[in-house]
């Protein structure tokens, strides 16, 4: 196993569980990869902590009043790091329990079945029957931003929360920019988001993006679309940034810090891949089939390095497929439903086909929607800024997509994934009892609205059941 991120350690543990002798090579001392150390986990911790700042303010109108909350940044950082350390230690512990050998060092392929590992103690050479490559990805840092100035951050540095800048520029309105922008905005920064495309979170449906954008517009200072950064330079303790908007007018500003979140690139450099039979695409991702096999019979690849959606649970799923392929079980990653979640506030989550995709494919479908304004539970949270949407294939009445925006959407989407994997029809969802009062009821009511009989909205339909 090359790489101990969510793909790597999952594969290592599964292979060990199935009786294989496993060596897990990881260049960082702490296991867990980007997700655990400088990605999913710390960002969610910070989001949770920082959201309280916003909630404390809102609490006033409910009659619960706080003095304005103060931030002890060192303590926040230490708490976040504590979580990361605990989880990383947990991964190490599980590895030990399973008899997985861990080797700290950077791996380099000398051949298809031979790896040179540069460890702190010197070089080690490893030979093996099969290897799974799970080296992951890193934040993209285009040349125009790469000034060697620590005030220009990628997500990795941003999660260190060294300081809360007064003015923060976030370049890129994707999920990383929006999540981390929210953290800093909650903690007191005035945040400007600059995005080259026409909106944030491209890829999600517009009706699901809308509540996220509205919330961001309240918390951030500004969101600018169709805007590029043309120049960036250091100016004393600030960063001078020149942007160009759709009117082609250049604007020069000073920011205390800049977060560059324009995407992630695969970590294929300096791996010795050229010494193997592996093929890569033009962007460097390793080419794999649906069984995670590469063009080299001894090597498989999973997770971010193998392309596709760059999500931790996709890597973990591919870990299962890869190990099953190695042990000879017929496995495949084809047809697996992978959900996507954006942990802004409100959260945005979807799985299967989006409404835009369904329309583009010319599918005969209906989007059955339930607005959270009609959800009793949402109102108790003061969070009616939500929407649950089911994409239903009219030919079979099967649910082929689920999209949700709102408080806790990230948890709720799992029901959508299960429904799709089970081949559920919209009736299956409508007729499954969901507890009241919960946000999960919105899924059931969206399904009921397909038949025009959702209790808490009035949208009658002429439909034969």
């Amino acid at each position, binding site marked *: 196993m090359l790489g101990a991120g969510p793909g790597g350690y999952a594969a290592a543990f599964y292979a060990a569980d199935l009786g294989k002798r496993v060596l897990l090579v990881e260049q960082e001392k702490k296991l867990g990869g980007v997700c655990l150390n400088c990605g999913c986990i710390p960002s969610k911790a910070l989001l949770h902590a920082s959201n309280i700042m916003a909630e404390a303010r809102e609490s006033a109108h409910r009659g619960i009043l706080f003095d304005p909350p103060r931030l002890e940044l060192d303590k926040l950082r230490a708490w976040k790091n504590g979580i990361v350390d605990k989880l990383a230690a947990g991964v190490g512990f599980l590895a030990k329990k399973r008899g997985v050998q861990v080797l700290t060092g950077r791996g380099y392929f000398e051949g298809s079945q031979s790896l040179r590992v540069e460890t702190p103690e010197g070089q080690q050479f490893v030979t093996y029957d099969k290897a799974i490559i799970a080296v992951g990805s890193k934040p993209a840092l285009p040349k125009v931003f790469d000034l060697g100035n620590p005030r220009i951050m990628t997500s990795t540095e941003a999660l260190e929360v060294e300081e809360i800048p007064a003015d923060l520029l976030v370049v890129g309105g994707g999920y990383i920019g929006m999540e981390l922008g929210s953290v800093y905005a909650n903690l007191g920064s005035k945040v400007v988001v600059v995005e080259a495309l026409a909106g944030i979170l491209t890829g999600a449906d517009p009706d699901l993006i809308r509540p996220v954008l509205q919330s961001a517009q309240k918390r951030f200072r500004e969101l600018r679309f169709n805007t590029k950064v043309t120049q960036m330079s250091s100016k004393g303790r600030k960063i001078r940034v020149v942007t160009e908007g759709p009117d082609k007018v250049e604007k020069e500003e000073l920011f205390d810090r800049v977060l560059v979140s324009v995407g992630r690139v695969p970590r294929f450099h300096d791996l010795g891949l050229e010494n193997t039979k592996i093929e890569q695409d033009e962007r460097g991702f390793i080419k794999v089939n649906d069984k995670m096999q590469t063009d080299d019979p001894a090597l498989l690849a999973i997770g971010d390095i193998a392309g596709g959606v760059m999500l931790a649970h996709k890597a973990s799923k591919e870990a299962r497929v890869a190990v099953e392929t190695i042990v000879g*079980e*017929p*496995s*495949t990653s084809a*047809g697996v439903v992978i959900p996507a979640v954006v942990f802004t506030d409100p959260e945005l989550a979807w799985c299967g086909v989006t409404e835009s995709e369904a329309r583009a494919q010319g599918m005969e479908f209906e989007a059955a929607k339930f607005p959270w304004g009609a959800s009793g539970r949402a109102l108790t949270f003061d969070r009616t800024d939500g929407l649950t949407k089911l994409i239903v294939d009219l030919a*079979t*009445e*099967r649910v082929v997509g689920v999209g949700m925006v709102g408080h806790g959407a990230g948890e709720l989407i799992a029901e959508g994934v299960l429904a799709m*994997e*089970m*081949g*559920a*029809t919209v*009736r*299956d969802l409508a007729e499954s009892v969901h507890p009241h009062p919960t946000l999960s009821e919105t899924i059931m009511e969206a399904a009921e609205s397909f038949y025009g009989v959702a209790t808490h909205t009035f949208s009658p339909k002429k439909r034969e059941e």
Partner: protein
Amino acid sequence: MDLKLPPLGEGVDSGSVVGILVREGDQIAKGQGIIELETGKAVAPVPSPAAGKVTKILVSLGDKISVGQAILCLEGNASAAVKPAAPAAPVARPVRPAGPAKAAPPPQQEPEAGVGAQDEPAEDAPPPAASPTIRRLGRQLGLDLRRVRGSASGGRIVMEDLRAYIQRLQHLASQPRAATSATASKPAAPSIDFAKWGAITKRPMTPLRKAIATHMSESWQATPRVTQFDEADITALNEMRATRAGAYEKKGARLTLTSFALKIVAGALGRHPVFNTSLDEAADEVIYKEYFHIGLAVDTEQGLIVPVLRDVDKKDILTLCKEMNDIAAKTRERKISLEEMQGGTFTITNQGGIGGGHFTPVINRPETAILGLGRGALKAVVREGKIEPRLMLPLALSYDHRVIDGGAAVRFMLDLVKGFEHFDEQQLV
């Protein structure tokens, strides 16, 4: 209401429209034929299940239509939809050109659950609705889940459907070979692009051609076939024929070599009953028939068809000639019925009318022997020490070596030769 093509039985699901028997506006009666459908070798009318007025005809001559496809629109009595054809229905039962009724019941009426909606799923069919557990099981068992029909809501495949599907597969696999050949899927064709080497023309196989191909393949694969060659001196026989031909013409019958052959063969079969048999592979029994129905291979424009003449031993040559003429004409006009092609015990295939010498005929399954005749030709023959020109008839006897041994074959052949060379003229009177 739309009249649809009912199930045709025995794994056949389509046919070609070779005749349209009604017009738009016609008032038709229940049971009246509406179209003529060619399936395999038989052409038969499809009856209307109800009376009414034909408002629209939905098919054209030459159309290939499938079971369930609408044929025409009928206005009038709202009777039930066309019922599936009962075995006795006039709708043709296809496939076996000269074969008898099969030993096993047709595998057509299967239990509904688990039966695949179609045996060959479309290449781009969407993945079937099935839980991860079922999909995993499918992978482990090597099943294509697109062939399994799901019975749960929305067409989802559940364990019960997999169970029923596998049971159906086992049931089909255990059927006697004669039955499964009808439902066996076609082997994958190797894709050779013949156009690479020059111009080509493609012609689809007609139902008749397909039926011939299937019949010949089955015979070839099942039967260890030996062909015994010989020649018979038919100089005298030919003179007999020439002398009598006129008289027969006056009686409306054409006296040909085949007419003689029928009687000669029938006589020989009586003395060598092992050539008048069928092999029951399932029961390990050889069935000796006490009747003599001889099939005659007829070369039609569309292909080879074998109508059967019944009780050849009991009929005189005049009757046989007349029947032969009738049946050959009917066959060439494709008016022959399936029944008239069944029940044969032996087959004669005479190429002599066209030409040809010795050849190796394929046995007309489930018979165990077949006689091929070539063209009689003048040859130099040694008789009593002298070379004389004699009219010699090439004979080729193919037989199933599972049932018949070489010795029996030689003896049968000698009997036949004797029959041709010393035909009793009295039989012609």
